[in-house]
């Protein structure tokens, strides 16, 4: 893990892989809960964890550098959520073709894999779900659709994602869910927070 300065009030932890990101994400959230770290935002991403809104970036870097995170096996503290999914997406057969399997096998692969919210971004409540084996990554569409409906379940790169609201999007649509994933009247407002374990079960 490397620590990079980000201005006067933030630092970026650069990790080797998604598993180390999750380990540090869980460790930093735990330390903040315990009052050992003051930070406004802790933002995991693909290979990094941003710690933003610290009183002093230099002091925070020294503090974090002295910590050893709990091993990954202990940090699987996320809630488990089954997302009922109707597998009828417009790009499902194209994904099956990319994987060189039939559509039923593609659905079994997606629904049979336990995924995990690696990070959120792009839009409020949009979660990047990882957990697919290497080699299942699919390219984005050559040009994004102008409108993807809310609840669309889609794949891009190594990730799965569910559009919380209608928006343009270039991910490959494999299905849809009626589950409401972002509601500002709930606490937390997003059902899929970093660390949440997810299965996209056939509805």
């Amino acid at each position, binding site marked *: 893990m490397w620590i990079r300065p980000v*201005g006067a009030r933030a630092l970026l932890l650069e990790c080797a892989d998604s598993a180390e990101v999750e380990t540090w994400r869980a460790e930093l959230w735990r330390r903040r809960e315990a009052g050992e770290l003051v930070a406004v935002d802790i933002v995991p991403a693909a290979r990094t964890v941003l710690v933003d809104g610290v009183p002093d970036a230099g002091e925070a870097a020294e503090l974090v550098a002295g910590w050893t995170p709990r091993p990954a096996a202990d940090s699987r503290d996320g809630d488990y959520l089954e997302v009922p999914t109707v597998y009828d997406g417009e790009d499902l057969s194209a994904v099956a073709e990319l994987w060189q399997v039939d559509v039923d096998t593609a659905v079994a692969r997606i629904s049979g894999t336990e995924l995990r919210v690696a990070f959120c971004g792009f839009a409020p409540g949009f979660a990047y779900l990882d957990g697919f084996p290497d080699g299942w990554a699919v390219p984005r569409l050559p040009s994004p659709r102008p409108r993807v409906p809310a609840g669309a379940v889609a794949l891009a790169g190594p990730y799965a994602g569910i559009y919380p609201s209608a928006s343009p999007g270039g991910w490959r649509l494999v299905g849809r869910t009626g589950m409401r994933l972002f509601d500002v009247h709930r606490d937390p407002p997003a059902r899929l927070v970093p660390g949440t374990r997810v299965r996209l079960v056939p509805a």
Partner: protein
Amino acid sequence: MSGPRESARRDEAQWIEVLRAGGLTTVQDLGRPGWAHLGVPRSGAMDPYALRLANRLVGNPEPAAALETTMTGCTVRLHRAGTVAVTGAPAVLRVGGRAVDTGGPVAVPAGAVVELGPARQGVRSYLAIAGGITVEPVLGSRATDTLSGLGPAPLTDGDTLPVGPVTAGPAPVDFLPDVPPPAELDLRVRLGPRQDWFTPEAVRALLGTAYTIGSMSNRVGARLAGAALPRAVPGELPSEGVVLGAVQVPADGQPLIFLADHPTTGGYPVIAVLDDVLPLAQARPGTIVRFHGPVAGPIARP
């Protein structure tokens, strides 16, 4: 316009009516920090000092919501008698057709029209109303986020907005210095987190040449034009969290400074981060920007 606003109108004793919304007028408070891990931007007033001052001038708590205008001002009508104050970009203010001073509390009779003209200098004026704008908060904030769509939509002609009860009198001692925004901004930066994705020439260009704020700038970011910042590392950076004031460099090499409504993650490398974005709140397109600051490298874990 929207459901919540209509129901609020019935429940509240006081409201304002938007007669002329202007080019971009939004409801702003101090934003919604602490939700970035869910993809929710911070948002909030571009000039939080001006917002706080406007609120103090009318007796509101500093974090109350007010209107943020953009260059073109706005016109509202108060349903009941109240107190307003305008801060930020200076502009002609008229109440009931009569010119009044900005930068201090102004008594407004019931039914009177408050006209805030175009900004004479700067970009954003703040119109605070005693009691504050009390649209329903979203994740603890009433701010309009132009990127994610959270909070009330930008105002349109004919909107009505609820105003809360007045809790205190106007502050008697506040002072508004009338300092015009400079034509050239000196912005202090710290290099990183991704300066190593750029050539040494790029770092020299960033710190040694002038940039101009482009006309496509908005609440999400200030787009700059000037010497391109060449990359030393080709390819895509995996998405990572970005902060207010990050100087991100898209594929065309022209830097972009992230402002209040910036996305929570980004995939272009950030060459440097500003210590303070406040001067950009009132910087018009065409303003010259110069960066200066210490050179910092990556810190290895001991």
